[in-house]
C-alpha cells in the first residue's frame, strides 16, 4: 500500500460524508416527501445543496472505483469507518442533531470492528488464469502454423 492509495481511501470517506451531509441538509429544507408525489423526489436534485452533494458523491464514486481496482471490496468498505466519526461530528456540530452516548459507543464499535480488517492484506490472491497457464505450457508444435 502506497501513500497515494491511502489518500484515495481517505477520499472515499471524506467525499461520502460531505456528499451525504449536503444531501441531508437539502432534504431537511424540503421536508417530508410523499409517496404520492414522486416527481418531488426527482426535482429535489436541482436544489443547490442537493446538487453539490451529488457532485461530492460523484467524487466519492471516482475514488471508490479506483480503490476497488486494486483492493478487495471487504477491504475498501472498512476504510469508510472514519466516515462514521466524521458523520457523527457533522450531525452534532453542523446539523445540530442530538447524538446520544449510545450512538457514540456505536460509532466506536464500528470503528474498532473495521479497524481489524485494515490489518490484513488488501487483496485476495487470485489463482492463475487457466488460459494463460495453457498458453505458457502449450507445446511449441501447437503454437506453430501447420
Amino acid at each position: 500500500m502506497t501513500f497515494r492509495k491511502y489518500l484515495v481511501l481517505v477520499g472515499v470517506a471524506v467525499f461520502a460524508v460531505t456528499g451525504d451531509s449536503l444531501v441531508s441538509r437539502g432534504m431537511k429544507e424540503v421536508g417530508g416527501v410523499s409517496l404520492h408525489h414522486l416527481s418531488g423526489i426527482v426535482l429535489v436534485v436541482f436544489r443547490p445543496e442537493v446538487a453539490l452533494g451529488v457532485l461530492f458523491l460523484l467524487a466519492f464514486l471516482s475514488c471508490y472505483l479506483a480503490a476497488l481496482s486494486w483492493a478487495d471490496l471487504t477491504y475498501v468498505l472498512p476504510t469508510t469507518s472514519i466516515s462514521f466519526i466524521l458523520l457523527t461530528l457533522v450531525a452534532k456540530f453542523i446539523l445540530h442533531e442530538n447524538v446520544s452516548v449510545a450512538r457514540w459507543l456505536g460509532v466506536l464499535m464500528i470503528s474498532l470492528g473495521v479497524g481489524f480488517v485494515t490489518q490484513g492484506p488488501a487483496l485476495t490472491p487470485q489463482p492463475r488464469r487457466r488460459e494463460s497457464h495453457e498458453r505458457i505450457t502449450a507445446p511449441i508444435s501447437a503454437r506453430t502454423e501447420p
Partner: protein
Amino acid sequence: MKQLYAWGAVACIVLTSTTGDVLLSRTMKQVGDVAELRKRSGLAHVIGRILRNPNFVIAIMAMATAFYAMLFGLSWADVSLVVPASTSLTFVSNAVAAKIFLHERVDHRRWLAAVLVAGGVILLAQ
C-alpha cells in the same frame, strides 16, 4: 410510522447497495489497476473500459435506486441514523456477498469486524 418507513428505506438501501457494490467490484477487477492502466493507455481509455462493462451499468442502476431510497429515508429520519445504519448493514451483507460471489478471502478478522459493525448499528439505532 415514520420510523417504520425509515427502516423500510434502510432495507432497500442495503439490498440495492450490496448489489451495486459487488457488481462495481467485479467490474473494476475485470478492468484492472486504474493507475497502471491510465499510465499505459490514458484516462479516456480507462473510462471507456469501465463504461462499456455491462456489470457497471447494472451497478449504477442499483446504486441510483439506493440513492433515491436514501433520499426518502433522510426525509423521514436523522442523517446520523439512516446513513450509518444502512452503510453498516451493507458492510455486513457485502462481506457475505463478497465471499459468495467474488470469492474474496473473508478471514476471522473480517467476520469479527462484521459482528462489531452489526453491534454498532444496534447502538446507533438507540
